[in-house]
């Protein structure tokens, strides 16, 4: 079985691109199963179910949605195998830019919206820099020059990635993405993350509500960038 992580900021077009890619995977004779992870609520499962593929939702609630996704990797895989899937597609919530929920053997796809401007690739961090495939959406809304400048910025931060120009409305680029998924390797054995996620490192991570500095312990960073360990 193959595993694909589809990450990217909310509204970037993950579900739209994913749905077109599923149709192309079906044309290629591959059976897909989808896990949608979100924080509190999602309606993506209803959209995807219309394609007749098995869909499962995981809500992370107060856990970092990417940590939650990583923690549940094994469960997702065993569920997808029990559904007889050839490809497990996991759409992430895409809210935490510190985390990149990409296991090394999975195909890491970062969906990014070109209308967010040419400086966005510099802001996204490991989500973009450790991806195998970068899907640039909404190119229909900008000029060719803007698409090219955007692409240049993506290559600057992730020189080895494959860039797919896709359109979530028309399905442009989805066949290319489906081909890349078909040609990706199978997952097997133990998987490692590509990028270490920040774990619970401070009192805020574990539920402290008071804002005053004196209540906080752990590895903490000040506005001026100074980082210190506060505590025993």
């Amino acid at each position, binding site marked *: 079985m193959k595993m694909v992580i589809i990450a990217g900021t909310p509204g970037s077009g993950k579900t739209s691109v994913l749905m077109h890619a599923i149709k192309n995977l079906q044309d290629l004779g591959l059976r897909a199963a989808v896990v949608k992870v979100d924080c509190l609520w999602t309606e993506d499962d209803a959209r995807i179910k219309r394609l007749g593929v098995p869909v499962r939702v995981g809500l992370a609630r107060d856990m970092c949605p990417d940590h939650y996704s990583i923690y549940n990797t094994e469960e997702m895989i065993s569920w997808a195998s029990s559904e007889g899937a050839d490809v497990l597609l996991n759409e992430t919530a895409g809210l935490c830019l510190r985390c990149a929920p990409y296991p090394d053997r999975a195909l890491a796809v970062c969906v990014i919206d070109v209308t967010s*401007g040419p400086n966005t690739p510099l802001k996204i961090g490991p989500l973009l820099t450790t991806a195998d495939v970068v899907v640039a959406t909404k190119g229909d809304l900008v000029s060719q*020059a803007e698409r090219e400048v955007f692409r240049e910025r993506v290559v600057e931060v992730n020189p080895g990635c494959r860039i797919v120009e896709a359109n979530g409305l028309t399905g442009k680029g989805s066949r290319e993405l489906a081909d890349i998924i078909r040609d990706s390797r199978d997952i097997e054995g133990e998987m490692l993350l590509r990028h270490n996620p920040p774990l619970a490192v401070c009192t805020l991570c574990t539920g402290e509500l008071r804002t005053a500095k004196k209540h906080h312990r752990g590895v903490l960073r000040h506005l001026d960038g100074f980082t210190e360990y506060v505590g025993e």
Partner: protein
Amino acid sequence: MIITIKGGFDKDGLPECVRSVDVSSGEVIGIVGPTGSGKSSLISDLEQFAQGDTPSRRYVLIDGFPPDPEIRHDPRRKPVAQLSQNMHFLADMSVREFISMHARSRGRDPGLLSKVLEMANTLTGEPVHADDNLTELSGGQSRALMVADIAVISDSPIVLIDEIENAGIRKKEALRLLSGEGKIVLVVTHDPLLALMTERRIVMRNGGMAKVINTTDEERRFCDSLFRVDTWLLSLRELIRRGEVLSATEAVI
């Protein structure tokens, strides 16, 4: 270079009436048809060098063969410049920064900026300056800058244009600058002047290429008067923008 469009299927899944169209270097071809008839989709098939993998299932060949997959997937190697329907830039930066960055991405000299500005300013009555913010340009200024950027920086052998009318720029001049020398040009248009400047036009209907019309000599005779009307309209527009009152002398074309 010859580009061949191999007909696919229309929105009802029926084979397109036009089974094959060849376009050679130096030709300007129009694409006409009502809204929703598939004009932008045809342009998009050309831009992607479709290989039966778009909704129309068309094939686009270069000199009779499918293009190298590398060319399809790397826009920097694609011999295509495209002016899309968008009337505005979204990137939040100055004209200088953006054009220099685009020049670098295409491996061109960032110093071409002054040439781009000079050309843009021949197309619009409202001058574009290097330090203007892209997002603050008017529709006319943005279109003029997009045209000049394509003519100077992109400078590709295939040029795809999705409507240059309605932006208040000198469209005949814009089409001339975009066409350059010996390029393959496909232009979507509802504008009689632009449509008659082409050698042939593809008529779109229900997502398919319905027929190809050769511009007749009789039609070409319209061109001069259409051009005069167009120049007249632009000059009136300019007078009104400047806050002037039109007088009877302006009523003569």
